[in-house]
């Protein structure tokens, strides 16, 4: 038992490493600043979610439907936790380098399994703390609940993530055990992971299209929402008992049910995990050497730029962690966000509503650019362009290719991947609004200009604060303070776009388009000139 906790602590430390970028140079002050930064971000998120929950509860209360909140809220929390777990389980249990470090130690497989499980559960608790705790308290406060409510809801919050975590991890373990038998192991693992994610989205799509959020009468909608929650509840074992435990605090059956489900899942998990986890861990490392002679077609000559960009893409795509963390969100997020608009039956309704809004206006254009700015902020390719290479980053200085050229080659994958959200958004606009082709083309050109500007500055952030001494690829994306700056950048851009749009509201949209073209072009030219002139200094931290 003791060993499990020691292991858990070690794993937690290695996965939540603060300020490891440059052990020698980063001062205490910087570390404290980083912690304060995290603190502010967390408080900010807690604040926003508390406020939104408060608004929602109050609105529902006006119709005497406040209990609905519990269902919607727990469902959202459960989805969030499940998605988060899908994204991180494979890494925590199999790819993290800390496993390699503890494997030679005298540890029982079950101890490793439980320690890793602890890490996953604790990181999900962190998410619950940020997104889940306060809304539930606010609900209790508004409905004037007694002390027993708070105790029960705490227990529910503690139990809620466990079953999905166990379930998803079990699936992952089976995949990894099985994939050892496959030749192209890593590709197979990636493929299966993708399939799970697509399935999760598919389910969501299924629910949005049967949920029929119509715009008729708000009460009808509410019962629909209730129905939807119930519907999905059938797929999530623990959702219904959790909801009922919180709504009816004088009944203990739901809570007991929840506990029972958790216990049973845990026993199954231990039973199967004990059998397959360790074998999977050992088998999942390394790929096989296959002997074969080189043929003429294996020797290829390419232009420097092309060869460089292809290398960047290969490294991104072949590394499952980079693929899942950097590329996938770029098209998952727009799909997830826009899916509700494409539901089969209500498409017409939404188009009717959309027709009331003139998108080909100054404000419409600014809003579109703001959405693009938000979507681009989920693309982590440029902001990890240097850090992803880790110890290899100094390679950029070894080869006889100018640092400016390499700067451009490094952002091209980011610019390319940005096409995905751009095209999805533009497609949606074309589908929903009666717009001209000319308008579509102009918006598309804007997104390309902005994509270049965005990527240049994201790589700039990475160069200023590179994270090169990581011990798992996961840390590059997930435990990287720089992401905060990416969000701040996108926030500022959104503010600027909306401000310009607002200021120019009375101006003819043709002139507005000219103004925007001018601003974006100048910004791009300036950025380009800046990196060209400063190329020597910009790469100073890479050595």
């Amino acid at each position: 038992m003791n060993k499990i906790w020691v292991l858990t602590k070690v794993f937690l430390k290695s996965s939540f490493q603060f300020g490891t970028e440059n052990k020698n140079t980063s001062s205490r002050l910087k570390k404290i600043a980083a912690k304060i930064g995290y603190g502010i971000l967390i408080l900010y998120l807690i604040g926003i979610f508390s406020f939104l929950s408060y608004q929602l509860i109050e609105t529902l209360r006006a119709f005497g439907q406040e209990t609905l909140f519990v269902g919607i809220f727990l469902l959202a929390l459960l989805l969030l936790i499940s998605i988060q777990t899908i994204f991180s389980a494979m890494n925590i249990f199999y790819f993290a380098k800390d496993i390699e470090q503890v494997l030679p130690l005298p540890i029982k497989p079950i101890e490793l399994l439980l320690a890793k499980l602890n890490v996953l559960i604790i990181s999900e608790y962190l998410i619950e703390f940020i997104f889940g705790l306060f809304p539930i308290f606010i609900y209790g406060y508004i409905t004037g609940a007694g002390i027993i409510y708070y105790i029960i809801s705490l227990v529910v919050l503690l139990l809620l993530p466990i079953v999905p975590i166990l379930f998803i991890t079990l699936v992952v373990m089976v995949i990894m055990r099985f994939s050892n038998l496959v030749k192209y192991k890593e590709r197979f693992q990636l493929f299966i992971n993708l399939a799970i994610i697509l399935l999760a989205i598919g389910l969501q799509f299924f629910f949005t299209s049967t949920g029929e959020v119509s715009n008729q009468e708000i009460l009808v909608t509410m019962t629909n929402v209730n129905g939807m929650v119930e519907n999905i509840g059938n797929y999530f074992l623990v959702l219904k008992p959790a909801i009922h435990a919180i709504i009816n605090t004088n009944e203990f059956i739901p809570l007991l049910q929840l506990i029972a489900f958790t216990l049973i899942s845990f026993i199954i998990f231990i039973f199967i995990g004990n059998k397959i986890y360790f074998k999977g861990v050992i088998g999942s490392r390394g790929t096989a050497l296959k002997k074969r002679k080189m043929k003429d077609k294996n020797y290829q000559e390419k232009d420097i730029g092309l060869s460089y960009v292809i290398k960047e893409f290969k490294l991104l795509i072949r590394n499952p962690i980079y693929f899942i963390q950097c590329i996938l969100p770029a098209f998952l997020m727009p799909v997830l966000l826009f899916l509700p608009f494409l539901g089969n039956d209500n498409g017409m309704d939404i188009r009717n509503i959309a027709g009331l809004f003139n998108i080909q206006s100054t404000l419409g254009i600014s809003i579109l650019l703001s959405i693009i700015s938000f979507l681009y902020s989920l693309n982590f390719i440029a902001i990890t362009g240097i850090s992803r290479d880790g110890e290899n980053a100094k390679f950029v200085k070894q080869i006889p290719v100018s640092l400016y050229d390499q700067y451009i080659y490094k952002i091209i994958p980011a610019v390319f991947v940005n096409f995905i959200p751009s095209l999805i958004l533009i497609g949606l606009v074309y589908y929903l609004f009666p717009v001209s082709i000319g308008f579509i083309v102009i918006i598309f050109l804007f997104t390309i200009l902005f994509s270049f500007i965005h990527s240049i500055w994201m790589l700039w952030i990475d160069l200023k604060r590179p994270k090169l001494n990581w011990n798992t690829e996961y840390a590059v994306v997930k435990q990287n303070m720089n992401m905060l700056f990416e969000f701040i950048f996108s926030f500022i851009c959104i503010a600027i776009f909306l401000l310009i749009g607002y200021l120019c509201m009375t101006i003819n949209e043709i002139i507005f388009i000219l103004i925007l073209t001018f601003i974006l072009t100048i910004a791009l030219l300036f950025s380009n000139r800046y990196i060209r002139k400063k190329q020597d200094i910009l790469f100073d931290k890479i050595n």
Partner: protein
Amino acid sequence: MITINHVSKSYVKGKKSVDNLNLEIKNGEIFGFLGPNGAGKTTTIKMITGILKPDEGEILLDGKNIEKQPVDAKKTIGFVPDSPDMFLRLTGIEYLNFIADMYEVPLEDRKERIEKLAKRFEIENDLGSSMQSYSHGMRQKIIVISMLLHQPKNWILDEPMTGLDPKSSFQLKELMREHAKKNNTVFFSTHVLEVAEKLCDRVGIIHKGNLIFVGTYEELKSEVKEGSSLEEMFLELTENE
């Protein structure tokens, strides 16, 4: 040819990792750079190859200043770093093609050179596999091969023998000799004194950032007590500070 003029570097203020280094390594020469751990070998090599900027002084490669004409200077260099874990997600042949592209090696030349070198290191049938599946030594061999494709005027290697088996180590030494014979410069760092003895035309010994000896191996022997072994010589020189 490598020219190092009054070069100093400190990572932390007040503690010089390399202190006023002066060296000239001529064409056709194999130069061994010796020193205990933390002496400043890697730091020096990083400055020569343009990875690190010196605080003072200048470094010329075939007369080209690495800071002022980095691209031209780097074209003359082939650099084998101390860690061979480069872009492991690529296959061996992909990596070699990529490096050849960076140095603009024509197709026919690269094909011929890769085939020849891979055969010598006995990895010609492993080039199609991902470098993740390579052993440390195999990775080292790929890096060595990649850094010979453009036939660099200045071949610079940081502890190249670590991880190589005796046969491959011998092959590498042969390659170094052949490379120097073609009137190129070979500069490498090592801890292993025997290697320096048999291979180098000249050696330099760096200790705590200071160059405490430069000369031929014979000269080195005459500097210390008669009959002392290699290790003793080395210890004597580095401890008499």
